[in-house]
């Protein structure tokens, strides 16, 4: 019965979305973390999602793995976390304790408005996966009552 795999799929979606929420929280928390050099400054982090194909799960079918048309897929995974390449903010603050010899301080390239929008999007997607899991649960519970009075 493939109803059980819906739990895995929705669970993988929830894991991915909560990791996205984690990076957003980290970005917002570090939005004002100043430093005196470009290398040490915090950069906005973004997760990269990728679909899991069913052939990845059973290696016995490796030969067919590249056809790209096998099965329904098995959820989502986080392929990695990348740091944003956007330019850092350089501010002239000679009184700042972390200012360099020219009086400049580097601030992270976090766009707080973008992060808030990302946060709303990921929390909605998380909710959607919870709804899917709930529906699968009630479908399964109904099927368990088959043949009962």
């Amino acid at each position, binding site marked *: *019965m*493939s*109803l059980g*795999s*819906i739990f895995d*799929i*929705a669970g*993988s*979606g929830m894991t*991915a*979305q909560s990791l*996205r929420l984690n990076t957003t929280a980290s970005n917002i928390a570090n939005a004002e973390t100043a430093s005196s050099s470009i290398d040490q400054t915090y950069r906005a982090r973004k997760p*990269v*999602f*990728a*679909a899991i194909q069913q052939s990845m799960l059973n290696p016995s079918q490796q030969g067919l793995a590249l056809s790209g*048309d096998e*099965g*329904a*897929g*098995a*959820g*989502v995974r986080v392929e990695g976390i990348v740091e944003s390449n956007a330019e850092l903010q350089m501010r002239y603050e000679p009184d700042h304790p972390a200012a360099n010899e020219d009086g400049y301080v580097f601030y992270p390239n976090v766009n707080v408005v973008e992060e808030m929008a990302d946060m709303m*999007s*990921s929390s909605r*997607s998380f909710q*959607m*996966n919870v*709804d*899917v899991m709930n*529906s*699968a649960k*009630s*479908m399964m519970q*109904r*099927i368990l*009552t*088959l*043949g009962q*009075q």
Partner: protein
Amino acid sequence: MAISLDGALGIHQPALEARIKRAEVLANNLANADTPGYKARDIDFKAMMQKAQQDMGGLGMAKTHENHLDTGSMAPDSELLYRLPHQPSVDGNTVDAQQEQSRFMRNAMETQASFQFLNGKVTGLKKALTGQ
């Protein structure tokens, strides 16, 4: 005439299986709603039911020679198709979360309907067996 348990449940058992498979595909679409480059998929329910009907010996063609083509399995699992996107997105993802969610909910209700039919068959069989 003997009661065949396979025949007694009719089309409802493959229908329920098809609905559950569709629920899996739609759940996968929803999980990948934010995956760049992911293409939304769906099951051709009509083709799946036609195949199930043929397998049950409805209107399928009989094989009288070993070299005959197998008409029943002309389209093995090709019911899994890609959805045509309503509007393109920059990252190549074709999942419309709202539409997929409404399809998922509708599919859940239809699963319940199939289940009710199946349950009715089972209840009828039980009644026949107990003879009350």
